[in-house]
C-alpha cells in the first residue's frame, strides 16, 4: 500500500535524528579547526627543502643542480645558481641556490622533484593550511620559507627520513672512504716520489680518478 514505505523511511530518519544526539558514534564529522584528524605518514602536500644543522641557509642540502627545475611538469620551480661554491655534506665543493622559488599555486604535488633529486634535498611536506589573501604572490614561496630542518622531516615522515639519512650516510661514507683513499694514494705517491724522485711523473695518474668520478653526474 502507498504510504507504508514512506512511514518506514520516516522512522529511519527519525532514528538518525535522535541517534545523533544520544550516540556520538553516529556523528563522524570532525569539526576541523578545533578537532583534527591525525595525518597519516603517507600524507604529501607540497615540496620543501631539507637543511642540516642549525642555520637553514648554510645547511641547505640543495646544490642548485636544477634537475628538479627541468623535471617539474607544471614548471613551478625557479632556481638561480650561486656564483661561488661551498662545501656540502660530502665535503665536496658545490654550488648552492641563490634563488629557489616554488609557486605552490601551480604545483600539482606530483612529487617528481623528490624522485629526481640526487641530493636528498627536496622532500614533500604535510602542511596544507596554505590559504592566503594574496592571489598572485601569496603562494610563491622562496628558499627561506621552503627551508625546513631534517628534524622536521623526521617528524612528518619518520620511515622515509630514516631511509634518506641512511642513504646520505652511505654517500658520506663513500666520500670519506674515497677521500681517505685519495689521501692514502697521495701519501703513497708522495712516498713513492720521495723514494724514487726521477721516475715520479708516470705515477701521477692515480690522482685523476677524483675529477673523473664527478664527471658521470654532469651530463644530463
Amino acid at each position, binding site marked *: *500500500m*502507498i504510504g507504508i514505505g*514512506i512511514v518506514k523511511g*520516516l522512522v529511519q530518519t527519525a532514528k*538518525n535524528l535522535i*541517534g*545523533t*544526539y544520544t550516540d556520538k558514534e553516529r556523528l563522524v564529522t570532525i569539526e576541523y579547526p578545533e578537532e583534527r584528524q591525525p595525518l597519516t605518514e603517507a600524507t604529501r602536500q607540497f615540496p620543501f627543502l631539507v637543511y642540516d644543522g642549525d642555520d637553514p641557509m648554510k645547511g641547505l642540502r640543495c646544490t642548485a643542480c636544477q634537475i628538479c627545475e627541468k623535471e617539474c611538469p607544471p614548471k613551478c620551480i625557479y632556481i638561480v645558481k650561486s656564483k661561488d661554491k661551498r662545501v656540502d655534506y660530502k665535503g665536496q665543493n658545490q654550488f648552492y641556490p641563490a634563488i629557489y622559488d616554488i609557486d605552490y599555486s601551480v604545483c600539482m604535488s606530483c612529487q617528481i622533484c623528490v624522485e629526481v633529486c640526487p641530493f636528498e634535498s627536496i622532500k614533500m611536506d604535510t602542511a596544507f593550511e596554505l590559504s592566503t589573501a594574496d592571489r598572485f604572490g601569496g603562494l610563491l614561496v622562496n628558499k627561506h620559507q621552503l627551508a625546513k630542518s631534517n628534524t622536521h622531516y623526521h617528524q612528518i615522515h619518520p620511515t622515509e627520513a630514516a631511509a634518506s639519512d641512511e642513504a646520505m650516510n652511505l654517500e658520506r661514507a663513500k666520500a670519506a672512504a674515497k677521500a681517505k683513499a685519495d689521501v692514502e694514494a697521495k701519501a703513497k705517491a708522495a712516498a713513492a716520489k720521495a723514494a724514487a724522485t726521477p721516475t715520479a711523473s708516470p705515477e701521477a695518474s692515480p690522482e685523476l680518478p677524483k675529477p673523473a668520478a664527478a664527471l658521470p653526474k654532469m651530463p644530463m
Partner: protein
Amino acid sequence: MASLDQIFVTLKEQLVQLFPAVLQPYVGVLLSIVAIMAVFPGIFALTTVVERKLLARFQNRPGPNRVGIPLTKIRLAGFGQFAADGIKSLTKEDIIPRNADRKVHFIAPFVLVVPAFLALSVLPIGRNMTALDFPETGLLFFFAIGAATELSVFMAGWSSRNKYSLLGAMRGIAQMLSYEIPLILSSLTVVMMVGSLSLVTIVERQTSVQWGFFHSWHVFTPWGFAGFLLFLTAACAEANRTPFDLPEAESELVAGYFTEYSGFKFALFFLGEYLGMFAISGVAISLFLGGWSAPFTFLDWVPSWLWFFGKLFAFILFFIWLRGTLPRLRVDQLMNLAWKFMLPMCLLNLLVVGVWHFTAEWNELLRWSLATVLLAGPYWLFSRSFEARFKPRTYRYAADSPAAPVVAPVAPQVPI
C-alpha cells in the same frame, strides 16, 4: 489568560487610538501589514537554520553550528547563520544574463513574494486575529492568489533564456496545475461540511467540544483524515518541497527556474518559496487541524496564537523531515500520482463527505465504519494497481547479459 490570548488585538487597538480618527483605519491596516511582514519573514529566517540543522541530523551530520555573534566567541549553536546568509545574499552582485528579458526577469520574484504575503494575510492566526477577513470568500481568495505562483515561475523561467530555467519552469507549472486540483478538491470537503468559504468560520466551527474533552477538529473524522493526507501531499507539491521538488531539482536542473538569479532577487525567491509553504501549512491547519484551537479542552488556557504558531512549526518540522527522508519523484510518477491516484481519492472523499453529512443521525460507530470502509477499500485497491506499475525496474541490456556467453562460442566460427 483571556488577556494574554487577546494581547496583540488589544495592543493594536491601543496603538490605533493614539492617532486621529481619520487615520485610524489606515493605521490599523498598516499595523497588520507590519505585523505580517515582520513575523513570517522572521519565521523564515529561523526555518532556514532549523532546516539545515535538522537535515544534517537526519544524515548523521552536525549541521551549521558556528555562526554566532561576530567578534565574540559566542556561537548560539549556529543560529546566527541566517543573518550571515542574509547579509551575503544582499551584498552579492546581481547578475542578469545578457540575453535575458530584463523587465520580466526583474518582476518575477516580486510576483512570487507579494501574493505569498497576501495569502498569509487571510490566515486566522489567533482568536480575532485575521488581517484580511473575507467573510464570503476567504479560501477562494487564497487559491486565487496561489495562481500567481505559477505566473512567477513561468516569468522567471522564460525570461532567463536558459534551458534549465525553462525546463524547471515548465515542470513547475505542470506540477502546480496538476496538484492544484487535488488541493482544491480536498479542501472542498471541509467547505461542504462547514458551508462557508471563510477560514474564520471554518476554524470557529472546529472549536466545538466533542465527548467533553477534545475539540472537534476535522482531522478527527474519516473524511477529514483522508482529506488532510491528500491536502498535505498536494500542499507539498504546491510548495515545491521534496519529494516534489522537480522544478528546482538541483541534481538535474542546477536550480530550476531561478538558476539565473543571484543576490537579492534569489533571496526573494527563497523567501517566496518558504512563505508559500507557511501559507499552505496555515491553510491546512485552519481547514483540518482546528486553526488556533487547542486539541483538548484542558489546554484552552494556552493563548490561541501560540497554538497556531506551534502547529505551523510542527508543519515546518514535518516538511523538513519529509525532505530528509524521501527521494525525488520522476516526472511521470509525479503526474501519475496526481491524476491517477489523488484525483480519484479526492472525488471519493467528496462522496464520503456527502454520506457523512446525510448520516448525521446514525449510530456513531456505524457511521464511522461506513465512512472508513468507503475510504480504505478503494485506497487499498488504488494503491495496489498504482504500485503494480512501480515494480523494480529492469534494464534491457542488463537483463540480456546472461545471453552473452551464448554468443561467445559463436565468435570463433566466424573465421571458418
